[in-house]
């Protein structure tokens, strides 16, 4: 539906104001609702009951209930249905306690004291104590841990229970953003008996789970959040094919889907009884170069390649306009301490050619490795990049790699490849995992002494004004000399049936309302 058609539909009373706003947002338009009809529309109290049927991509028959190894969306979403976290990110973006009633940090940001909510019951009837919390975090940091976050949680030096409801956490080095790490989807809390049964303190109890096929849960009557959840149960069906997800939603076999293909989103939005919701968060696509491998060790080459891509064209073609152009920073526009003074880097093939000429590398030929495993459309994006770069006299040879094994054989291995990051809610977290020298996920090997020093200093700095200066300087350094091209920030698109009542605020940290749709949504 075009924006003027929407307006008309709204004025004729065919769609509600909420629908109007959501649909216009999905179309990427920022518009004020036509004035006359707004007053008098209030959000009704959410209805209770019904079973939410989700059709989701991102599941595999090899998934499990182990929170340490969740590789993709379905097990992550299920985790949020079954278990709770110490701290959660509210739909509006700030931190609120979930199992934690409160937390405080001592000076130096190395000592954290978390006070637990009292009277929280697990699905098996056991009451939550600090022992469960320590056991759950231990799962990620003990010596033989197989957890995907073993690295990032490894900064914990010691944990100690102070009675049944207080946990003291000591870090090896200070980290002012540590509370954010406790919201990581891996770090859920399960009873000391273990994670194998799926027992947690979440809004739903596990009924059946067939990895890669379906999962079924029912309401937890003793859920500690008053009045929640609204649904009686949730059914997840694994649908890996984007077209099949669209079809399932259109035919009413599911009520909501994740990962609507950006290319067909506008078409799905036209379908009867369905709308597409768009969220731009921290998910971004990157094209990392290994800065220690020629020719990428030459800063002029890196700068030229950053100038040689037409980001607007990529946004239009690869994302169907659903997203933002990136400015070679892995930090979202709306994130704290985003450097607003850096100009947007534009497509400038002449300047790129000039820079290469300066260092005697005109007619540069490089290889770019791509597979759709990196992100949907990565091969196409690489092909377009190569087309754009031709204007600068740069010859990019796109190597199509196998999806299978992409992350172990291509990413971090080939000198230039396609990659994506879901992003992290804080600057420190994002820079640390992928840009800190020697980090396990560092995919660019860009060594800049002042950048690395600033990263360490900012981590223990608790004064926001000083932190801002430090992060701004880091972003400037990376923007000027870094080895990662960040051409796009991708929107998360979900397809939602009109039968679902969405809350006013929808979280942007993960798809499907921060993966908490089962708890936050209801039927209309």
């Amino acid at each position: 539906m075009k924006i003027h058609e929407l307006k008309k539909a709204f004025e004729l009373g065919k769609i509600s104001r909420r629908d109007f706003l959501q649909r216009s947002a999905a179309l990427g338009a920022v518009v004020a609702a036509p004035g006359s009809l707004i007053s008098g529309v209030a959000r009704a109290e959410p209805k209770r009951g019904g079973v939410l049927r989700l059709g989701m991509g991102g599941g595999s028959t090899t998934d499990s209930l182990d929170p340490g190894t969740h590789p993709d969306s379905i097990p992550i979403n299920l985790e949020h249905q079954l278990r709770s976290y110490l701290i959660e990110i509210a739909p509006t973006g700030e931190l609120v306690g979930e199992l934690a009633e409160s937390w405080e940090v001592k000076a130096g940001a190395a000592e954290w004291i978390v006070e637990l909510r009292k009277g929280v019951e697990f699905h098996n009837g056991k009451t939550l104590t600090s022992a469960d919390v320590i056991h759950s975090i231990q799962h990620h940091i003990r010596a033989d841990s197989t957890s995907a976050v073993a690295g990032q949680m490894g900064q914990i030096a010691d944990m100690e229970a102070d009675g049944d409801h207080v946990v003291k956490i000591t870090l090896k080095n200070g980290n002012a953003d540590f509370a954010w790490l406790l919201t990581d989807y891996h770090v859920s809390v399960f009873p000391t008996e273990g994670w194998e049964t799926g027992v947690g303190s979440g809004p739903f109890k596990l009924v059946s789970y067939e990895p890669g096929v379906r999962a079924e849960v029912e309401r937890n009557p003793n859920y500690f959040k008053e009045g929640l959840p609204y649904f009686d149960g949730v059914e997840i069906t694994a649908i890996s094919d984007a077209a099949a997800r669209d079809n399932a939603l259109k035919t009413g076999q599911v009520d909501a889907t994740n990962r609507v293909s950006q290319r067909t989103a506008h078409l799905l939005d036209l379908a009867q009884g369905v709308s597409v919701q768009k969220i731009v968060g921290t998910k971004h696509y990157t094209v990392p170069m290994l800065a220690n491998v020629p020719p990428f060790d030459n800063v002029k080459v890196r700068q030229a390649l950053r100038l040689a891509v037409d980001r607007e064209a990529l946004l239009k073609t690869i994302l169907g306009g659903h997203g933002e152009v990136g400015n070679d920073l892995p930090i979202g526009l709306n994130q704290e301490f985003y450097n607003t003074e850096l100009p947007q880097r534009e497509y400038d093939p002449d300047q790129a050619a000039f820079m290469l000429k300066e260092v005697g590398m005109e007619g540069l030929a490089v290889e770019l490795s791509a597979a759709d495993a990196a992100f949907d459309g990565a091969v196409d994006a690489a092909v377009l990049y190569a087309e754009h770069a031709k204007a600068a006299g740069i010859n990019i040879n796109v190597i199509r790699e196998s999806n299978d094994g992409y992350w172990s054989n291509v990413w971090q291995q080939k000198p230039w490849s396609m990659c994506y990051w879901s992003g992290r809610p804080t600057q420190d977290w994002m820079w640390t995992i992928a840009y800190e020298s020697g980090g396990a996920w560092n995919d660019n090997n860009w060594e800049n002494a002042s950048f690395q020093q600033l990263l360490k200093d900012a981590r223990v700095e608790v004064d926001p004004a000083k932190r801002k200066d430090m992060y701004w300087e880091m972003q400037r350094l990376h923007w000027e000399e870094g080895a990662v091209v960040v051409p796009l920030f991708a929107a998360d698109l979900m397809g939602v049936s009109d039968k679902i009542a969405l809350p006013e605020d929808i979280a942007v940290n993960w798809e499907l309302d921060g993966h908490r749709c089962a708890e936050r949504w209801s039927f209309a």
Partner: protein
Amino acid sequence: MRFWLSLKRAGLPAHIGIIVIVLFAFAAVFAPWLAPYGESEVVDAVPWATPEESGTLLGLDQLGRDLYSRVLFGARNTIALAMGITILAFFMGMTAGFFAAVVGRWVDLLLSRLVDIIMAFPTLFFALIALSIFGTSIPVLVFVIATLDSTRVYRIARALAMDTNVMEYVEVARLRGEGLWWIMRREILPNTLTPLLAEFGLRFCFVFLFISSLSFLGIGIQPPAADWGAMVRENGVAITYGIFTPLVPAAAIATLTIAVNLVVDWFLRKTAGLREEY
């Protein structure tokens, strides 16, 4: 002269088939001159723009490239690959199949077990694993698919040759002291050619489909080179929204397949010789 005469008498279907094949071959050879745009040139960053919207003959593909130009360029890769793979597969499969059937004994046993082992692997996995290990260059692609296809040809060639091999005239030739190669070429081949030719027409088209399936798993021809199978895959999802773009490369595959099989049918009739009127 005799060839032209028989061509003239081939009948309308064969003529249609030949004209289509010639046209496609012409398109393949002269694609750079016929195509209004380059193989990977982006006309307008509007995915699946209609002909009217984009001012092109067939509209744009998923990246906003000219579909008509890509179909023309695709003809080169597609026809060359499919031809090469099918011919190689038939050469390998028929030689091995006849050999096994005529020599029999341990040769048959060995070859048949080897083929069984290859065929017992699901084809897609065989290709996936082989291409992951050896890399996805064109020669590897051709050889892997030809190997897979040749096992199917082997089965049929062997079954047909076994049937023929026990016929009296083969016995006679053998008693006459004819050599192995002579028997394979002069006795077995002509008497098994008809069903094998029918198989050729189909195998030829399976190659497109297989390449299309491979691109489903993210392997196949290197982009931005166009091939019809991958083009159907890349644009396929649009059909669920009533956008007809993927039908164009699909129709190209279907037209070529039908044309090839029309010509094959004509050959079939020619080999059937004088009993034609029946």
